[in-house]
């Protein structure tokens, strides 16, 4: 259909500004947007035919109901783009606005849908929670007896993704993009950390930018370069069913149905249905990287599809008599954290990536292509795509075994209930602190960040371990009392938290790339990742100073060791321990950076000396509660590269007036002059019942005087305040134009706030500075128990 696709083989140009690899929806979308933005010297190469990979087999469902705000925005933009694409290019895309219905078989699922509903509404995507009765009206074939509710998104659509790709390619080609199919890239040439060109089976092309949109072959392509680019993704087989038309063909406007509890989706297809799903036992494929030009039809596996078919017939019993056309098997790619991968490689300048769509390539294609094109043209995209940035991954996600195991977990998760604080189970225990076994034996429960195990909390010996591990809830979790006692111990005595995975680790991921980027090239400065060399112990609490002074003869008084100070000292027999008087929580205490060979010794000494001060182990949940209560924002969770100190109350830490020059000083001075457009704010929930109400998590809409002003970024129960605390950014959208305006302290302070948790709004007090510990809980006489006399 597209003229570009049918073009006879011609010689490749010798050079181009940009070479895009991959003629699926991603590659064509990037090329389309680059050409729209004025970059016309673009060559797009496709190893087979255009739109013949996953794009051709895509089920064609465009859905805006996404868990991440950035994903919602991408899908919303895609929807609008595809809607007008036929008009723009004259190529039929089959775009039909059918709407979609997300079914809930359980109350928990409904809560999950309500949370999405709240978030879609605030960004202007029509959406509502409906009753089962309404579902039956929207789709007469559905069995609704087992439903508790549903979410209806009326503007979702179905579209032929292959035709969308062809339309995008055609439009790009008309603006000057050169498209060559049946051309394979063999190698990406890199010189001094910069892309210089590509080598194809039809010759070389010099280029400044390379875009890897190779879909499931992106991992392998990433390795085909002088400087390999690690792109962690893996393919799984994905099955969907096609039937012949219904006796009276289903109208084309029949809404798409997503029955996540039944693990299936169902859409209208040429008067019959198309139905697939995400099974519990996925079949990963191509682990060895078996390459092939186009995805031929892989084996149908009916036995594997049986649970999904049962689920389909339960949902639409009348389908029994419908005749099968075929069971399609098309591999889909998945990423280690269920989010797509975009951005520039941290190691190779000019090497961009847009892949790993986790079965949502069509929904994201338009928006993701636009953001990547902006990124290339302007140096950064117009939206914050931090969560999707390739730089979030490190080398340890590039093991094929890890990817194979992880995607087997990720694929079912697409339709699993997403409850707060779940942890991946695969790819675990890769990086552990030397204290791991020790802590594990003491009841540690673990979470994982980039392969590093960190303790969440410590289960006391008398608790039912199994129940704790399996509890999934949107309400008050089982570990509430456990974390409470850990927090209390941090407040009143002393706790030790193994934070080996911390700090240095955070630097490696995002900041690492940044630091490296701005390293003066000729200086004597050496930048090294030392995460693995040190174990970090966080000694939190008023008695931390007592413990440490018993173990070291160094003076510990505040004049000798003021807050935020670092000293090298001996602890026990171990020498050269770096001690910093900070705890990342606002509580008194110390961080101990211990060379790993001393870790066990220092830990044992700390625990044995600490005995008389009531020392105990604590985990990250206690840490989080403490730091959020004290309004300590966390890098990666609350803050990212697009946040300035002025926007998060960090101005006092910036030497703006001391004549010191640093990167971004001018921008900050200007921002100080003009004011900020968003401000990190702390919210204390007032009328929230911890036992009975849904807990906040993150991403909840914030309302000021009844109007939407932003979303939360993290939350925790503050055991001292005895309230829930949320952190989040407040914006000031103009009432008339929606434009962002300056946010002043006055604006923050003079508002009535509400936080929307799954459709229920809770009143909240906004604070720009931490609450002084006036509310700190006073210990009453009768609270003292005999057990307080025991050592812990």
């Amino acid at each position, binding site marked *: 259909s597209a003229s570009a696709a049918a073009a006879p083989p011609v010689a490749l140009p010798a050079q181009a500004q940009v070479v895009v690899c991959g003629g699926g929806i991603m590659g064509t979308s990037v090329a389309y947007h680059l050409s729209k933005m004025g970059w016309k010297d673009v060559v797009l190469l496709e190893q087979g035919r255009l739109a013949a990979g996953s794009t051709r087999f895509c089920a064609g469902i465009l859905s805006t109901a996404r868990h991440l705000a950035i994903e919602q925005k991408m899908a919303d933009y895609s929807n609008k783009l595809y809607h007008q694409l036929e008009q723009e290019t004259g190529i039929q895309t089959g775009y039909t606005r059918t709407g979609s219905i997300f079914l809930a078989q359980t109350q928990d699922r409904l809560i999950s849908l309500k949370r999405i509903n709240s978030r879609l509404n605030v960004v202007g995507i029509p959406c509502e929670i409906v009753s089962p009765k309404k579902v039956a009206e929207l789709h007469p074939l559905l069995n609704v007896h087992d439903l508790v509710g549903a979410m209806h998104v009326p503007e979702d659509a179905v579209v032929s993704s292959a035709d969308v790709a062809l339309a995008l390619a055609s439009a790009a080609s008309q603006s000057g993009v050169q498209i060559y199919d049946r051309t394979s890239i063999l190698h990406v040439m890199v010189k001094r950390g910069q892309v210089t060109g590509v080598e194809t089976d039809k010759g070389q092309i010099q280029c400044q930018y390379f875009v890897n949109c190779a879909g499931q072959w992106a991992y392998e392509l990433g390795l085909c370069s002088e400087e390999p680019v690690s792109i962690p993704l893996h393919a799984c087989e994905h099955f969907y069913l096609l039937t012949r038309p219904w006796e009276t063909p289903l109208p084309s406007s029949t809404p798409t149905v997503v029955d996540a509890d039944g693990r299936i989706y169902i859409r209208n297809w040429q008067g019959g249905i198309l139905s697939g799903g995400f099974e519990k036992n996925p079949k990963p494929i191509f682990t060895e990287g078996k390459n092939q030009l186009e995805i031929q039809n892989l084996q149908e596996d009916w036995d594997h599809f049986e649970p999904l078919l049962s689920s389909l017939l339960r949902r639409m019993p009348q389908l029994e008599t419908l005749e099968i056309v075929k069971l399609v098997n098309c591999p889909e790619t998945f990423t280690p954290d269920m989010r797509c991968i975009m951005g520039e490689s941290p190691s190779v300048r000019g090497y961009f990536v847009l892949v790993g769509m986790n079965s949502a390539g069509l929904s994201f294609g338009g928006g993701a292509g636009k953001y990547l094109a902006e990124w290339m043209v302007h140096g950064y995209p117009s939206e914050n795509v931090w969560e999707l940035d390739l730089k979030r991954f490190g080398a340890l996600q590039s093991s094929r*075994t890890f990817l194979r195991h992880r995607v087997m977990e990720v694929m079912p998760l697409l339709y699993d209930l997403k409850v707060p604080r779940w942890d991946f189970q695969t790819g675990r225990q890769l990086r552990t602190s030397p204290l791991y076994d020790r802590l594990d034996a003491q009841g540690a429960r673990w979470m994982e960040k980039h392969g590093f195990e960190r303790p969440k909390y410590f289960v006391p010996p008398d608790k039912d371990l199994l129940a704790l591990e399996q509890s999934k809830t949107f309400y008050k979790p089982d570990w509430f009392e456990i974390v409470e006692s850990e927090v209390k111990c941090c407040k009143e005595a002393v706790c030790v938290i193994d934070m080996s995975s911390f700090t240095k680790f955070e630097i490696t991921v995002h900041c690492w790339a940044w630091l490296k980027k701005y390293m003066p090239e000729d200086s004597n400065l050496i930048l090294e990742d030392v995460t693995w060399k040190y174990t970090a112990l966080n000694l939190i609490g008023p008695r931390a100073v007592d413990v440490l002074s018993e173990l070291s003869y160094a003076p510990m008084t505040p004049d000798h060791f003021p807050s935020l100070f670092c000293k090298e000292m001996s602890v026990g027999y171990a020498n050269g321990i770096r001690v910093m008087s900070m705890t990342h929580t606002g509580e008194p205490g110390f961080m101990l950076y211990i060379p790993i060979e001393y870790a066990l010794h220092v830990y044992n000494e700390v625990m044995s000396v600490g005995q008389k001060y009531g020392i105990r182990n604590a985990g990250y949940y206690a840490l989080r509660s403490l730091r959020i209560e004290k309004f300590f924002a966390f890098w990666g969770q609350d803050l990212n590269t697009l946040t300035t100190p002025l926007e998060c109350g960090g101005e006092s830490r910036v030497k703006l007036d001391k004549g010191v020059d640093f990167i971004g000083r001018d921008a900050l001075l200007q921002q100080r002059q003009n004011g900020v457009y968003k401000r990190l704010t702390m919210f204390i929930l007032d009328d929230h019942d911890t036992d009975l109400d849904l807990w906040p998590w993150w991403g909840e809409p914030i309302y000021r005087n009844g109007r939407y002003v932003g979303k939360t970024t993290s939350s925790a129960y503050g055991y001292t305040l005895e309230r829930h605390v949320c952190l989040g950014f407040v914006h000031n959208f103009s009432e008339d134009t929606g434009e962002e305006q300056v946010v002043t302290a006055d604006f923050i302070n003079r508002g009535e706030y509400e936080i929307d948790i799954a459709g229920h709004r809770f009143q909240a007090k906004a604070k720009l500075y931490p609450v002084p510990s006036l509310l700190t809980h006073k210990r009453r006489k009768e609270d003292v128990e005999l057990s307080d006399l025991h050592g812990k």
Partner: protein
Amino acid sequence: ASTPQKFYLTPPQVNSILKANEYSFKVPEFDGKNVSSVLGFDSNQLPANAPIEDRRSAATCLQTRGMLLGVFDGHAGCACSQAVSERLFYYIAVSLLPHETLLEIENAVESGRALLPILQWHKHPNDYFSKEASKLYFNSLRTYWQELIDLNTGESTDIDVKEALINAFKRLDNDISLEAQVGDPNSFLNYLVLRVAFSGATACVAHVDGVDLHVANTGDSRAMLGVQEEDGSWSAVTLSNDHNAQNEREVERLKLEHPKNEAKSVVKQDRLLGLLMPFRAFGDVKFKWSIDLQKRVIESGPDQLNDNEYTKFIPPNYYTPPYLTAEPEVTYHRLRPQDKFLVLATDGLWETMHRQDVVRIVGEYLTGMHHQQPIAVGGYKVTLGQMHGLLTERRAKMSSVFEDQNAATHLIRHAVGNNEFGAVDHERLSKMLSLPEELARMYRDDITIIVVQFNSHVVGAYQNQEQ
């Protein structure tokens, strides 16, 4: 008159009895890849004697390739079968080792360094090793490899598996005999080595290495290969010969090994010297030693031995010992893709079930578990409802029939519970399993089974490689 009350075991009780000794081993695969020709094995045993006299062993050779699996049927107690189950694989593994490895091990022992591990055992928790004798056993084994080292003429020849198996069997039996003659200062050990020597055990051992399958058999246990024909049906290929009176060649052998005038007494009432069912066995020094030696050892032995009438009893017509050997008969089979599994079992199984039934039951069990023909819609008109019906039927077939997760357990269930129509009858199964100890032996023998499953893909790949 009231009808006598019947006590039946419930199905869960039956299952817990049947499954008490079951063990499965799957050859570990990395990332879906397993390059071994063995997928894994299931094993189980059901006692009739108390305590059970059968033993089983399975181990992977660590210094050479290949896997060893064996069943051992003891008689006159379990001492000999226990000792053989602990020791025989070490003798085989050592016999298979190249000269340099033997030297390396010997040097390590000499200088007190850590030893190379030779075997990785795959054991059920009930399969114990005797701690007390391990030093003694080790010393005998060391003497054996020292001799192997000394015997080496320097010319490195390929080790012949058949020869290695025969040597190992004979050597171990010899050591058992010697240890009993020499005795041990430790009275417990002294009594142990004597009990080992005076009891007996048959052995049926398989060594699988790639497509090379060797079976070494001594006695009346049996190795049976399950072959799937092109039409999907199952046939049994026997890989061992029983050494008992039903085997004419064995009877012939015995007659040839002894003077003509003993022709009538050497095999009498289908038994060796009218006493012993198997014609080859480990231990059983009563059929191997001279009368003098027997008397001397018994007299100098501990009182318990002297009090035992069986040991003191000299077989009638005992003129030209030895009458019994532990030398195995070794058969070789080159595995083909259609060879799906191997059943090693003691005679307790074979006397209750025909080999053809054994292979069919295991074959159907394994294919039901692992693969059914995939369904393809092709060009046919199939509705969703029809397809759903078909799939649920297939799934039901897979799950309901096979409540056993272990092929050996499944086989025992059939062996003990089969009615005249070849179907498992719960009432019969329940009765057989609730027999009191003293009666059980009259209705059945100890049963020990190992079902080794082969990896047809790997076997096929070997075949292609060599073509």
